């Protein structure tokens, strides 16, 4: 998305990610205990719809990026 294009919708982020966002920790720490990272985040995400690191809109899949409700592929939980 080009930042120079004034017709573009602003990025509006929610704290709730798209329901198709996946990472390993979701499957390992299923009781919510989480990885004790604290000072760093090296989580690797993928999209369930495409099973790759890019969503159906061909845009990067990530913690912040997939909270953007304006993404065409965003689906709430």
């Amino acid at each position, binding site marked *: *998305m*080009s930042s120079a294009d004034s017709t573009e919708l602003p990025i509006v982020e929610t704290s709730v990610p798209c329901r198709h966002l*996946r990472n*390993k*920790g979701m*499957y*390992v*720490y*299923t*009781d919510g*205990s989480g*990885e*004790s*990272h604290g*000072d*760093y*985040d*090296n*989580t*690797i*995400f*993928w999209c*369930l*719809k*495409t*099973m*790759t*690191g*890019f969503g159906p809109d*061909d*845009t*990067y899949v*990530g913690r912040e990026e997939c909270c953007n409700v304006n993404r065409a592929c965003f689906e709430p939980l």
Partner: protein
Amino acid sequence: MAAWPKEPRLIGTKVPRLDGLAKASGKAKYPSDVRPEGTLFGVVLYSPHANATVKSIDTAAAEKMPGVKGIVVIAGQGKKLRFQGDDIAIVAAETEEQARDAVRAIKVDYEVLPHCVTESQSMDEKAPQVFDGGNVRKARAIVKGKPEEALEKADVVVEGTYSLPVITHVCLEPHGLTAQAEGSSKITAWASTQAVTVVAGELAGSFNISPADVTVLTEVMGGGFGSKFGADIWGRTAAELSKKCGGRPVKVFLDRAQEHLAAGNRPSATGHVKLGASKDGKLVAMIAETYGTGGVRGGSNFPLPYVYDLKNSSRAHAEVSVNAGGARAMRAPGHPQGCAIMEAALDDLAAKLGMDPVEIRVKNLAEVDNVRGGRQGETINRTPMYEAQLKLGAELIGWRDKYKPRGENGKGVVKRGLGVALHQWGGGGAADKQVSCTINPDGSVEIKSATQDIGTGARTILAMITAEVLGLKPTDIKSNIGNSTFPPGQSSGGSTTTPSMSPPCLAAATQARAAFFNKIAPALSTDAETLSLKDGQVWVNGEPTMSWKDACRKLGMASISETGKFADGLSSVGVGGCQFAEVEVDTETGVVRVKKIVAIQDSGLIIDKLTWESQVYGGVIGGLNYGLFEERVMDPTTGVMLNPDMELYKLAGASDIPEIIVRAYETEEMKNRGVIGVGEPPTIATAAAIANAVANAIGVRVPDWPMSPRNVLNALASKEGKA
């Protein structure tokens, strides 16, 4: 409250893997061996370019090729291809050869775009964007205390840049699965995965069907190391092709080249570090600027500072994207990088101060470094554990007799050196897992759970726990895992499998034993409280009375089946360890040979000492590969990987493996903590310890891993001012 046996008969002993003979003899069938009747073979067409757009794709000729039954296009017209190895299409045919021929017949017209495949290319201001948003993304900076001020006051400061390359996953069994669709609503998959339930869930989600209608089977599997969690695009497309081909099974497993290109890697790490200390070697501050690449996926951040107590530190990390295959979790994600950079800087500081490397490490452990103890709310200070481990390791490597200060290792061409490094990891259990235990009237015992054995010995461990409770041998237990339809089991990641699965297994066996006693007590004219199990016998009031099998017959026609759930107090989290390396370096050729490694590791209560040791050996060997050999080599000009095979992508051979001494730090206090995973921790410190040993041997830091002849000779040339 549930508790492990105080005087176990089996737990803590060395029990060979139940499936060891089958694996060693070839009898075990891995998912990539499975070929159900009518199997079609899938082959992936992938991008030959580092950056391109598909202008057009024509599969017409391929579809008419002999044996071709179906083609699924993944990247159609207009789709971006962001790295060599990016998926374009998969062909299913009667034979693998026919599928390969058809892949070659697919006509793709590419618009080849400029690329950047190295960090330096990507960070150039004029670099093409790997994807929208910029090639360099900064992580949240972390500042503790006043590092600049503290560094100015430090008595001694070292400054260096250390770097570790991208290394790729090299599982012996490639990624993939064989999928068979039944109608539109059922799928069976034989998957090489470390998470049968995840693959089932993802296939179900992908086809919008119930997870109950997907069965994923993984009887055994040939390595995952963090890279085999999901169904992946390859698995999903196999299922789609099976649907297209009338329900015929479709097998899609990657070839070795695509394994290197697309099946995941450990990100690179480069750190510019300033580390300061007082005269007595006490660290006062660290300032680190780091970056790394996870290809098109990110994930390159890592812990730094690492292990040691630093009241003043700052850390800025940048994620660099390049047109190369994306990262996936790899055995202890982030820790080997953080460990290597921290330990190298600390070792350089010790050399500058003229301090013993072991002494400076002990001096800089936190006064209090609490990890979870055995009981709820109980903690254990890890620092005395580290101190004891360092003492033991130093004895076993012969530190006192062999250690000489850096660069004082003789005048000959071949130098010897010693190095040391510390590490830490979590490895706790997930609280929602279950195991079922069934006792049958014929005396057979079966346990079930939807976990899998990634190679750590999960099948054997569950059998040992059950046999311990029921007074049987592990071989008496049918340990049934690797099936997604079984009671919910743990995915094998984060060293969590054993600590997650052992508590519900203990509960299931204990509950089944209680139900068994209640059922047979009347037949033995006694009360259940008088019964016990030992040596394959039922004991009444401490006397052997009846064989297990005869007693089971008293069950009549009904089996006993109990499902155990996770219980607190049986597993814990938070381990530490240290490793020592002894190396020989030929200063004329730059060749490093590791002569000996000592690995000391704590991990709570050890269930099977044999598979525990195997994990530590395997971790050390993986770390040795990281330290000496592995490196993804990208060609900046063409954008392709130059070593996507097992010839030029270097790994240790048998003659490269040194003497490895493994010791468990297993005190009563540790045993009382319960079970903790050990899959990841023992691979963390090896590359760091080897690099420190090389520096000790040759008198100069080799700042770039691996410790290859080129990097060693470069460092020696730099020392002589020739670089």
